[in-house]
Protein backbone atom coordinates (compact mmCIF):
# COMPACT_ATOMS: atom_id res chain seq x y z
CA UNK A 1 0.00 0.00 0.00
CA UNK A 2 2.68 2.49 1.02
CA UNK A 3 4.86 1.30 -1.85
CA UNK A 4 2.10 2.09 -4.32
CA UNK A 5 1.50 5.43 -2.67
CA UNK A 6 5.18 6.25 -2.75
CA UNK A 7 5.34 5.38 -6.43
CA UNK A 8 2.36 7.58 -7.18
CA UNK A 9 3.96 10.42 -5.26
CA UNK A 10 7.16 10.09 -7.25
CA UNK A 11 5.33 10.17 -10.54
CA UNK A 12 3.10 13.09 -9.71
CA UNK A 13 5.16 15.42 -7.51
CA UNK A 14 7.49 17.13 -9.92
CA UNK A 15 4.96 17.68 -12.73
CA UNK A 16 2.41 19.00 -10.24
CA UNK A 17 5.02 21.35 -8.78
CA UNK A 18 5.98 22.65 -12.22
CA UNK A 19 2.35 23.19 -13.18
CA UNK A 20 1.74 25.05 -9.95
CA UNK A 21 4.75 27.28 -10.59
CA UNK A 22 3.48 28.03 -14.08
CA UNK A 23 -0.01 28.77 -12.78
CA UNK A 24 1.11 31.20 -10.12
CA UNK A 25 3.83 32.82 -12.16
CA UNK A 26 1.45 33.63 -14.98
CA UNK A 27 -1.61 34.37 -12.88
CA UNK A 28 -1.47 38.14 -13.17
CA UNK A 29 0.20 38.32 -16.51
CA UNK A 30 -0.96 41.04 -18.83
CA UNK A 31 1.55 40.10 -21.50
CA UNK A 32 -0.42 39.48 -24.66
CA UNK A 33 1.78 36.60 -25.71
CA UNK A 34 2.05 34.95 -22.30
CA UNK A 35 -1.48 34.70 -20.99
CA UNK A 36 -2.30 33.21 -17.59
CA UNK A 37 -2.42 29.44 -17.49
CA UNK A 38 -6.06 29.64 -16.43
CA UNK A 39 -6.98 31.34 -19.70
CA UNK A 40 -5.05 28.79 -21.68
CA UNK A 41 -6.88 25.95 -19.97
CA UNK A 42 -10.23 27.60 -20.61
CA UNK A 43 -9.28 28.07 -24.25
CA UNK A 44 -8.25 24.41 -24.33
CA UNK A 45 -11.66 23.28 -23.23
CA UNK A 46 -13.47 25.62 -25.61
CA UNK A 47 -11.34 24.93 -28.64
CA UNK A 48 -10.53 21.29 -28.67
CA UNK A 49 -13.42 19.57 -26.96
CA UNK A 50 -16.06 19.66 -29.61
CA UNK A 51 -16.44 19.49 -33.38
CA UNK A 52 -12.93 20.73 -33.98
CA UNK A 53 -11.61 17.50 -32.52
CA UNK A 54 -13.30 15.49 -35.21
CA UNK A 55 -12.70 17.97 -38.00
CA UNK A 56 -9.06 18.74 -37.39
CA UNK A 57 -7.40 16.48 -34.86
CA UNK A 58 -8.65 13.11 -36.08
CA UNK A 59 -7.67 13.65 -39.74
CA UNK A 60 -4.22 14.74 -38.63
CA UNK A 61 -3.84 11.68 -36.43
CA UNK A 62 -5.04 9.49 -39.29
CA UNK A 63 -2.42 10.96 -41.60
CA UNK A 64 0.21 10.46 -38.93
CA UNK A 65 -0.82 6.84 -38.51
CA UNK A 66 -0.75 6.13 -42.23
CA UNK A 67 2.55 7.93 -42.71
CA UNK A 68 4.14 6.19 -39.75
CA UNK A 69 2.93 2.78 -40.85
CA UNK A 70 4.20 3.44 -44.34
CA UNK A 71 7.58 4.49 -43.00
CA UNK A 72 7.73 1.35 -40.84
CA UNK A 73 6.98 -1.00 -43.68
CA UNK A 74 9.25 0.77 -46.16
CA UNK A 75 12.01 1.28 -43.62
CA UNK A 76 12.10 -2.30 -42.44
CA UNK A 77 11.85 -3.71 -45.96
CA UNK A 78 14.54 -1.46 -47.43
CA UNK A 79 16.67 -1.69 -44.32
CA UNK A 80 16.66 -5.46 -44.33
CA UNK A 81 17.53 -5.57 -48.01
CA UNK A 82 20.34 -3.06 -47.56
CA UNK A 83 21.60 -4.62 -44.36
CA UNK A 84 21.84 -8.08 -45.82
CA UNK A 85 23.78 -7.06 -48.89
CA UNK A 86 27.21 -5.51 -48.40
CA UNK A 87 27.61 -4.12 -51.93
CA UNK A 88 24.16 -2.54 -51.83
CA UNK A 89 24.92 -0.98 -48.50
CA UNK A 90 28.24 0.40 -49.68
CA UNK A 91 26.61 1.88 -52.75
CA UNK A 92 23.63 3.44 -51.03
CA UNK A 93 25.10 4.65 -47.76
CA UNK A 94 26.43 8.04 -48.96
CA UNK A 95 23.19 8.77 -50.83
CA UNK A 96 21.10 7.89 -47.79
CA UNK A 97 23.26 10.00 -45.48
CA UNK A 98 22.83 12.90 -47.85
CA UNK A 99 19.07 12.59 -48.13
CA UNK A 100 18.74 12.24 -44.40
CA UNK A 101 20.46 15.55 -43.80
CA UNK A 102 17.99 17.63 -45.81
CA UNK A 103 15.62 19.28 -43.34
CA UNK A 104 11.93 18.38 -43.83
CA UNK A 105 10.60 21.92 -44.35
CA UNK A 106 12.90 22.13 -47.33
CA UNK A 107 11.56 18.91 -48.75
CA UNK A 108 7.98 20.15 -48.59
CA UNK A 109 8.14 22.28 -51.76
CA UNK A 110 9.68 19.39 -53.66
CA UNK A 111 6.98 17.05 -52.43
CA UNK A 112 4.32 19.58 -53.34
CA UNK A 113 5.67 19.49 -56.89
CA UNK A 114 5.47 15.73 -57.01
CA UNK A 115 2.38 14.98 -55.00
CA UNK A 116 0.24 18.12 -55.09
CA UNK A 117 -1.25 19.76 -52.06
CA UNK A 118 -3.65 17.20 -50.66
CA UNK A 119 -3.40 14.53 -48.02
CA UNK A 120 -1.01 12.47 -50.15
CA UNK A 121 1.62 15.16 -49.86
CA UNK A 122 1.24 15.36 -46.11
CA UNK A 123 1.52 11.62 -45.70
CA UNK A 124 4.61 11.64 -47.93
CA UNK A 125 6.19 14.35 -45.78
CA UNK A 126 5.66 12.19 -42.69
CA UNK A 127 7.02 9.11 -44.44
CA UNK A 128 10.04 10.99 -45.74
CA UNK A 129 11.03 12.04 -42.25
CA UNK A 130 10.10 8.93 -40.27
CA UNK A 131 11.83 6.66 -42.74
CA UNK A 132 15.39 7.53 -41.77
CA UNK A 133 15.65 6.41 -38.15
CA UNK A 134 13.80 3.19 -38.96
CA UNK A 135 15.86 2.52 -42.07
CA UNK A 136 19.24 3.25 -40.53
CA UNK A 137 18.49 1.37 -37.34
CA UNK A 138 17.20 -1.62 -39.30
CA UNK A 139 20.40 -1.69 -41.31
CA UNK A 140 22.46 -1.61 -38.11
CA UNK A 141 20.31 -4.27 -36.51
CA UNK A 142 20.45 -6.60 -39.47
CA UNK A 143 24.20 -6.19 -39.68
CA UNK A 144 24.65 -7.02 -36.03
CA UNK A 145 23.11 -10.49 -36.11
CA UNK A 146 24.91 -12.73 -33.68
CA UNK A 147 27.38 -14.97 -35.50
CA UNK A 148 26.66 -17.97 -33.31
CA UNK A 149 22.97 -17.76 -34.02
CA UNK A 150 23.63 -17.42 -37.73
CA UNK A 151 25.79 -20.53 -37.70
CA UNK A 152 23.19 -22.43 -35.73
CA UNK A 153 20.62 -21.54 -38.34
CA UNK A 154 22.94 -22.71 -41.06
CA UNK A 155 23.56 -26.08 -39.42
CA UNK A 156 19.84 -26.58 -38.95
CA UNK A 157 19.36 -25.59 -42.59
CA UNK A 158 16.91 -22.85 -41.77
CA UNK A 159 16.81 -20.76 -44.91
CA UNK A 160 14.70 -18.25 -46.75
CA UNK A 161 11.63 -16.73 -45.18
CA UNK A 162 12.02 -18.68 -41.97
CA UNK A 163 15.56 -17.47 -41.51
CA UNK A 164 14.53 -13.94 -42.32
CA UNK A 165 11.74 -13.95 -39.81
CA UNK A 166 13.19 -15.93 -36.96
CA UNK A 167 16.81 -14.95 -37.14
CA UNK A 168 17.30 -11.68 -38.91
CA UNK A 169 14.22 -9.70 -37.98
CA UNK A 170 14.02 -11.03 -34.50
CA UNK A 171 17.67 -10.20 -33.74
CA UNK A 172 17.26 -6.80 -35.26
CA UNK A 173 14.01 -6.04 -33.49
CA UNK A 174 15.50 -4.15 -30.52
CA UNK A 175 17.29 -1.84 -32.92
CA UNK A 176 14.23 -1.52 -35.12
CA UNK A 177 12.15 -0.59 -32.11
CA UNK A 178 14.67 2.09 -31.17
CA UNK A 179 14.36 3.49 -34.65
CA UNK A 180 10.59 3.30 -34.50
CA UNK A 181 10.66 5.20 -31.24
CA UNK A 182 12.70 8.04 -32.69
CA UNK A 183 10.49 8.02 -35.76
CA UNK A 184 7.44 8.57 -33.59
CA UNK A 185 8.68 11.89 -32.24
CA UNK A 186 9.77 12.92 -35.71
CA UNK A 187 6.37 11.94 -37.06
CA UNK A 188 4.54 14.30 -34.75
CA UNK A 189 6.84 17.15 -35.71
CA UNK A 190 6.35 16.44 -39.39
CA UNK A 191 2.62 16.19 -39.02
CA UNK A 192 2.67 19.79 -37.83
CA UNK A 193 5.18 20.94 -40.45
CA UNK A 194 3.27 19.32 -43.31
CA UNK A 195 0.21 21.30 -42.33
CA UNK A 196 2.02 24.58 -42.04
CA UNK A 197 2.47 24.97 -45.74
CA UNK A 198 -0.45 23.97 -47.90
CA UNK A 199 -3.37 22.90 -45.83
CA UNK A 200 -6.94 23.77 -45.11
CA UNK A 201 -7.56 21.63 -42.05
CA UNK A 202 -5.68 19.72 -39.42
CA UNK A 203 -4.12 20.15 -36.01
CA UNK A 204 -0.92 21.85 -37.13
CA UNK A 205 -2.84 24.04 -39.56
CA UNK A 206 -5.21 25.18 -36.80
CA UNK A 207 -2.38 26.08 -34.46
CA UNK A 208 -0.63 28.09 -37.15
CA UNK A 209 -3.88 29.89 -38.05
CA UNK A 210 -4.37 30.79 -34.41
CA UNK A 211 -0.90 32.23 -34.34
CA UNK A 212 -1.49 34.24 -37.50
CA UNK A 213 -4.85 35.46 -36.28
CA UNK A 214 -3.32 36.54 -32.97
CA UNK A 215 -5.57 34.18 -31.01
CA UNK A 216 -2.81 33.49 -28.52
CA UNK A 217 -4.49 31.53 -25.69
CA UNK A 218 -5.93 29.21 -28.34
CA UNK A 219 -2.47 28.82 -29.86
CA UNK A 220 -0.97 27.85 -26.50
CA UNK A 221 -3.80 25.42 -25.91
CA UNK A 222 -2.90 23.82 -29.22
CA UNK A 223 0.72 23.53 -28.13
CA UNK A 224 -0.44 21.84 -24.92
CA UNK A 225 -2.51 19.44 -26.97
CA UNK A 226 0.53 18.58 -29.07
CA UNK A 227 2.49 17.81 -25.92
CA UNK A 228 -0.32 15.65 -24.56
CA UNK A 229 -0.56 13.83 -27.85
CA UNK A 230 3.15 13.15 -27.78
CA UNK A 231 2.92 11.74 -24.28
CA UNK A 232 -0.07 9.56 -25.08
CA UNK A 233 1.54 8.17 -28.21
CA UNK A 234 4.76 7.53 -26.33
CA UNK A 235 2.90 5.64 -23.60
CA UNK A 236 1.06 3.61 -26.22
CA UNK A 237 4.36 2.85 -27.86
CA UNK A 238 5.81 1.68 -24.55
CA UNK A 239 2.90 -0.70 -24.17
CA UNK A 240 3.42 -2.18 -27.61
CA UNK A 241 7.16 -2.38 -27.06
CA UNK A 242 6.74 -4.34 -23.86
CA UNK A 243 4.75 -6.95 -25.67
CA UNK A 244 6.95 -7.18 -28.75
CA UNK A 245 10.27 -7.01 -26.95
CA UNK A 246 9.29 -8.78 -23.77
CA UNK A 247 11.77 -11.54 -24.50
CA UNK A 248 14.60 -9.04 -24.95
CA UNK A 249 13.96 -7.10 -21.77
CA UNK A 250 13.75 -10.28 -19.79
CA UNK A 251 17.00 -11.51 -21.27
CA UNK A 252 18.84 -8.31 -20.43
CA UNK A 253 17.40 -8.08 -16.93
CA UNK A 254 18.53 -11.64 -16.24
CA UNK A 255 22.01 -10.91 -17.61
CA UNK A 256 22.29 -7.83 -15.43
CA UNK A 257 21.16 -9.51 -12.27
CA UNK A 258 23.22 -12.64 -12.61
Amino acid at each position, binding site marked *: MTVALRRLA*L*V*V*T*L*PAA*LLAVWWFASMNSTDFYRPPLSRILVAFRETWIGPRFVDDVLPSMARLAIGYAGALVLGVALGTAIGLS*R*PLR*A*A*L*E*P*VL*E*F*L*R*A*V*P*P*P*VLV*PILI*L*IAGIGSTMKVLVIVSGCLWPILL*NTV*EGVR*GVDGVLADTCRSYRIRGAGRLWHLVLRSAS*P*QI*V*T*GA*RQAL*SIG*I*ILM*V*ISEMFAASSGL*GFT*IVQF*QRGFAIPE*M*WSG*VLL*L*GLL*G*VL*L*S*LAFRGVEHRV*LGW*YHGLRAAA*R*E*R
Partner: protein
Amino acid sequence: MRFLGVAGLLGFGALLELAPRVGLVPERYAPPISRIAVALAEQAQQQRFWLALSDTLRTWIIGLGIAVAAGVVLGVVIGATPLLRAATASTIEFLRPIPSVALIPLAVLLYGASRSGTLVLVVYASFWQVLVQVLHGVADVDPVARETAHAYRLGRWARVRYLVWPTALPYAVTGVRLAASVALILAITGELVIGSPGLGREIAIAQSSGAVPVMYALVLVTGLVGVAANVVTRAAERRVLAWHPSVRGEVPV
Protein backbone atom coordinates in the same frame (compact mmCIF):
# COMPACT_ATOMS: atom_id res chain seq x y z
CA MET B 1 33.73 -0.72 -51.41
CA ARG B 2 34.46 2.97 -51.43
CA PHE B 3 34.22 2.85 -55.19
CA LEU B 4 30.70 1.51 -54.82
CA GLY B 5 29.81 4.47 -52.64
CA VAL B 6 30.99 6.86 -55.29
CA ALA B 7 29.11 4.87 -57.91
CA GLY B 8 25.97 5.14 -55.82
CA LEU B 9 26.35 8.90 -55.58
CA LEU B 10 26.95 9.19 -59.31
CA GLY B 11 23.88 7.10 -60.01
CA PHE B 12 21.83 9.33 -57.77
CA GLY B 13 23.24 12.39 -59.51
CA ALA B 14 22.30 10.93 -62.89
CA LEU B 15 18.77 10.36 -61.64
CA LEU B 16 18.54 13.98 -60.53
CA GLU B 17 19.79 15.14 -63.89
CA LEU B 18 17.50 13.01 -65.99
CA ALA B 19 14.24 13.22 -64.07
CA PRO B 20 13.52 16.86 -64.94
CA ARG B 21 14.77 16.49 -68.50
CA VAL B 22 12.57 13.48 -69.11
CA GLY B 23 9.56 15.22 -67.64
CA LEU B 24 9.10 13.24 -64.46
CA VAL B 25 9.07 16.51 -62.59
CA PRO B 26 8.42 19.96 -64.10
CA GLU B 27 11.79 21.24 -65.26
CA ARG B 28 11.12 24.86 -64.42
CA TYR B 29 10.53 24.09 -60.78
CA ALA B 30 12.82 21.10 -60.30
CA PRO B 31 15.84 21.92 -62.45
CA PRO B 32 18.39 19.31 -63.51
CA ILE B 33 21.40 19.02 -61.25
CA SER B 34 23.71 20.58 -63.81
CA ARG B 35 21.82 23.84 -63.53
CA ILE B 36 21.81 23.56 -59.77
CA ALA B 37 25.56 23.05 -59.79
CA VAL B 38 25.99 26.22 -61.86
CA ALA B 39 23.86 28.16 -59.39
CA LEU B 40 25.93 26.72 -56.56
CA ALA B 41 29.14 27.87 -58.20
CA GLU B 42 27.68 31.37 -58.49
CA GLN B 43 26.58 31.35 -54.87
CA ALA B 44 30.01 30.23 -53.70
CA GLN B 45 31.42 33.46 -55.09
CA GLN B 46 29.18 35.60 -52.95
CA GLN B 47 30.18 36.64 -49.49
CA ARG B 48 26.65 36.40 -48.13
CA PHE B 49 26.64 32.68 -48.83
CA TRP B 50 29.74 32.08 -46.74
CA LEU B 51 28.40 34.33 -43.98
CA ALA B 52 25.17 32.34 -43.92
CA LEU B 53 27.06 29.07 -43.85
CA SER B 54 29.21 30.19 -40.94
CA ASP B 55 26.08 31.42 -39.12
CA THR B 56 24.46 28.02 -39.47
CA LEU B 57 27.58 26.22 -38.35
CA ARG B 58 27.93 28.49 -35.33
CA THR B 59 24.31 28.00 -34.31
CA TRP B 60 24.78 24.27 -34.72
CA ILE B 61 27.94 24.01 -32.68
CA ILE B 62 26.81 26.35 -29.90
CA GLY B 63 23.44 24.63 -29.61
CA LEU B 64 25.01 21.19 -29.65
CA GLY B 65 27.59 22.22 -27.09
CA ILE B 66 25.02 23.56 -24.66
CA ALA B 67 22.78 20.53 -25.14
CA VAL B 68 25.62 18.05 -24.66
CA ALA B 69 27.02 19.81 -21.60
CA ALA B 70 23.61 20.08 -19.97
CA GLY B 71 22.60 16.58 -21.01
CA VAL B 72 25.74 14.94 -19.68
CA VAL B 73 25.80 16.82 -16.39
CA LEU B 74 22.11 16.37 -15.68
CA GLY B 75 22.17 12.79 -16.89
CA VAL B 76 24.99 11.81 -14.56
CA VAL B 77 23.52 13.70 -11.60
CA ILE B 78 20.00 12.36 -12.07
CA GLY B 79 21.14 8.87 -13.04
CA ALA B 80 23.44 8.46 -10.07
CA THR B 81 20.70 9.19 -7.53
CA PRO B 82 17.84 6.67 -7.67
CA LEU B 83 15.43 9.01 -5.89
CA LEU B 84 16.00 11.84 -8.32
CA ARG B 85 15.68 9.45 -11.18
CA ALA B 86 12.33 8.15 -10.03
CA ALA B 87 11.01 11.63 -9.27
CA THR B 88 11.96 13.10 -12.64
CA ALA B 89 10.98 10.11 -14.78
CA SER B 90 7.41 11.25 -15.38
CA THR B 91 8.43 14.84 -16.15
CA ILE B 92 11.06 13.68 -18.63
CA GLU B 93 8.59 11.37 -20.30
CA PHE B 94 6.14 14.27 -20.62
CA LEU B 95 8.52 16.94 -21.88
CA ARG B 96 10.51 14.73 -24.19
CA PRO B 97 7.91 14.03 -26.86
CA ILE B 98 6.83 17.66 -27.18
CA PRO B 99 7.73 18.47 -30.76
CA SER B 100 10.26 21.26 -31.00
CA VAL B 101 8.10 22.98 -33.62
CA ALA B 102 5.62 23.63 -30.85
CA LEU B 103 8.25 25.85 -29.30
CA ILE B 104 8.61 28.04 -32.37
CA PRO B 105 6.00 30.59 -31.22
CA LEU B 106 7.68 30.79 -27.81
CA ALA B 107 11.11 31.18 -29.36
CA VAL B 108 9.88 33.95 -31.63
CA LEU B 109 8.28 35.71 -28.67
CA LEU B 110 11.40 35.62 -26.58
CA TYR B 111 14.07 36.28 -29.15
CA GLY B 112 12.49 37.45 -32.37
CA ALA B 113 14.43 36.35 -35.42
CA SER B 114 17.84 36.39 -33.79
CA ARG B 115 20.11 33.40 -33.49
CA SER B 116 18.91 32.78 -29.94
CA GLY B 117 15.43 31.87 -31.17
CA THR B 118 16.82 29.05 -33.25
CA LEU B 119 19.21 28.10 -30.45
CA VAL B 120 16.21 27.44 -28.20
CA LEU B 121 14.89 24.92 -30.71
CA VAL B 122 18.26 23.30 -31.26
CA VAL B 123 19.13 22.96 -27.59
CA TYR B 124 15.69 21.69 -26.66
CA ALA B 125 15.62 18.92 -29.24
CA SER B 126 19.25 17.83 -28.84
CA PHE B 127 19.23 17.92 -25.06
CA TRP B 128 16.74 15.05 -24.78
CA GLN B 129 18.75 12.86 -27.09
CA VAL B 130 21.82 13.21 -24.93
CA LEU B 131 19.99 13.03 -21.59
CA VAL B 132 18.13 9.83 -22.34
CA GLN B 133 21.23 8.11 -23.61
CA VAL B 134 23.30 9.16 -20.61
CA LEU B 135 20.58 8.01 -18.24
CA HIS B 136 20.62 4.62 -19.88
CA GLY B 137 24.38 4.53 -19.70
CA VAL B 138 24.43 5.32 -16.02
CA ALA B 139 21.82 2.66 -15.38
CA ASP B 140 23.81 0.06 -17.26
CA VAL B 141 26.67 -0.04 -14.82
CA ASP B 142 27.90 -3.59 -14.30
CA PRO B 143 26.63 -4.78 -10.91
CA VAL B 144 29.82 -6.68 -10.13
CA ALA B 145 31.87 -3.56 -10.74
CA ARG B 146 29.50 -1.54 -8.63
CA GLU B 147 29.82 -3.92 -5.73
CA THR B 148 33.58 -3.94 -6.10
CA ALA B 149 33.60 -0.15 -5.88
CA HIS B 150 31.43 -0.36 -2.79
CA ALA B 151 33.74 -2.93 -1.22
CA TYR B 152 36.72 -0.67 -1.83
CA ARG B 153 34.76 2.18 -0.27
CA LEU B 154 35.12 4.51 -3.22
CA GLY B 155 33.55 7.89 -2.49
CA ARG B 156 30.76 9.32 -4.60
CA TRP B 157 33.03 11.41 -6.75
CA ALA B 158 35.49 8.55 -7.34
CA ARG B 159 32.60 6.26 -8.19
CA VAL B 160 31.33 8.71 -10.79
CA ARG B 161 34.78 9.06 -12.24
CA TYR B 162 35.88 5.44 -12.41
CA LEU B 163 32.62 3.55 -12.55
CA VAL B 164 29.80 5.61 -13.97
CA TRP B 165 31.63 7.68 -16.53
CA PRO B 166 33.37 4.88 -18.49
CA THR B 167 30.13 2.91 -18.66
CA ALA B 168 28.09 5.88 -19.69
CA LEU B 169 30.61 7.22 -22.17
CA PRO B 170 29.65 5.00 -25.15
CA TYR B 171 26.01 5.82 -24.60
CA ALA B 172 26.83 9.49 -24.24
CA VAL B 173 28.79 9.44 -27.47
CA THR B 174 25.93 7.79 -29.30
CA GLY B 175 23.71 10.47 -27.83
CA VAL B 176 26.04 13.16 -29.13
CA ARG B 177 26.03 11.66 -32.58
CA LEU B 178 22.21 11.52 -32.65
CA ALA B 179 22.00 14.99 -31.18
CA ALA B 180 24.42 16.33 -33.80
CA SER B 181 22.21 15.41 -36.72
CA VAL B 182 19.04 16.56 -34.95
CA ALA B 183 20.73 19.83 -34.03
CA LEU B 184 21.71 20.55 -37.62
CA ILE B 185 18.29 19.81 -38.98
CA LEU B 186 16.66 21.99 -36.36
CA ALA B 187 19.14 24.80 -36.87
CA ILE B 188 18.22 24.98 -40.53
CA THR B 189 14.52 24.52 -39.82
CA GLY B 190 14.62 27.31 -37.28
CA GLU B 191 16.38 29.61 -39.71
CA LEU B 192 13.88 28.74 -42.41
CA VAL B 193 10.74 29.18 -40.36
CA ILE B 194 11.76 31.90 -37.91
CA GLY B 195 14.22 33.77 -40.09
CA SER B 196 17.37 33.62 -37.97
CA PRO B 197 20.55 34.30 -39.94
CA GLY B 198 21.94 31.27 -41.70
CA LEU B 199 21.51 28.88 -44.60
CA GLY B 200 17.85 28.27 -43.79
CA ARG B 201 17.08 31.94 -44.13
CA GLU B 202 18.93 32.13 -47.44
CA ILE B 203 16.80 29.24 -48.63
CA ALA B 204 13.67 31.14 -47.58
CA ILE B 205 14.85 34.30 -49.35
CA ALA B 206 15.59 32.29 -52.50
CA GLN B 207 12.12 30.80 -52.30
CA SER B 208 10.41 34.15 -51.88
CA SER B 209 12.47 35.50 -54.78
CA GLY B 210 11.37 32.69 -57.06
CA ALA B 211 15.01 31.79 -57.65
CA VAL B 212 14.56 28.06 -57.99
CA PRO B 213 18.07 26.89 -58.98
CA VAL B 214 19.59 28.95 -56.16
CA MET B 215 17.18 27.41 -53.67
CA TYR B 216 18.10 23.90 -54.71
CA ALA B 217 21.77 24.80 -54.66
CA LEU B 218 21.40 25.83 -51.02
CA VAL B 219 19.46 22.65 -50.26
CA LEU B 220 22.34 20.70 -51.77
CA VAL B 221 24.69 22.53 -49.45
CA THR B 222 22.61 21.64 -46.40
CA GLY B 223 22.72 17.99 -47.41
CA LEU B 224 26.48 18.15 -47.83
CA VAL B 225 26.92 19.89 -44.47
CA GLY B 226 24.86 17.14 -42.86
CA VAL B 227 27.01 14.45 -44.43
CA ALA B 228 30.19 16.23 -43.38
CA ALA B 229 28.87 16.65 -39.84
CA ASN B 230 28.09 12.97 -39.69
CA VAL B 231 31.55 12.02 -40.91
CA VAL B 232 33.18 14.30 -38.34
CA THR B 233 31.11 13.01 -35.45
CA ARG B 234 31.72 9.41 -36.43
CA ALA B 235 35.46 10.02 -36.62
CA ALA B 236 35.43 11.72 -33.23
CA GLU B 237 33.37 8.86 -31.86
CA ARG B 238 35.89 6.30 -33.07
CA ARG B 239 38.74 8.17 -31.42
CA VAL B 240 37.04 8.81 -28.11
CA LEU B 241 35.84 5.23 -27.85
CA ALA B 242 38.94 3.56 -29.25
CA TRP B 243 39.30 1.71 -25.96
CA HIS B 244 35.80 0.24 -25.93
CA PRO B 245 35.93 -3.45 -26.79
CA SER B 246 32.57 -4.53 -28.07
CA VAL B 247 30.26 -3.52 -30.86
CA ARG B 248 28.14 -0.71 -29.53
CA GLY B 249 24.69 -0.54 -30.97
CA GLU B 250 22.18 2.18 -30.38
CA VAL B 251 20.50 1.51 -27.08
CA PRO B 252 16.86 0.50 -27.21
CA VAL B 253 14.84 3.03 -25.36
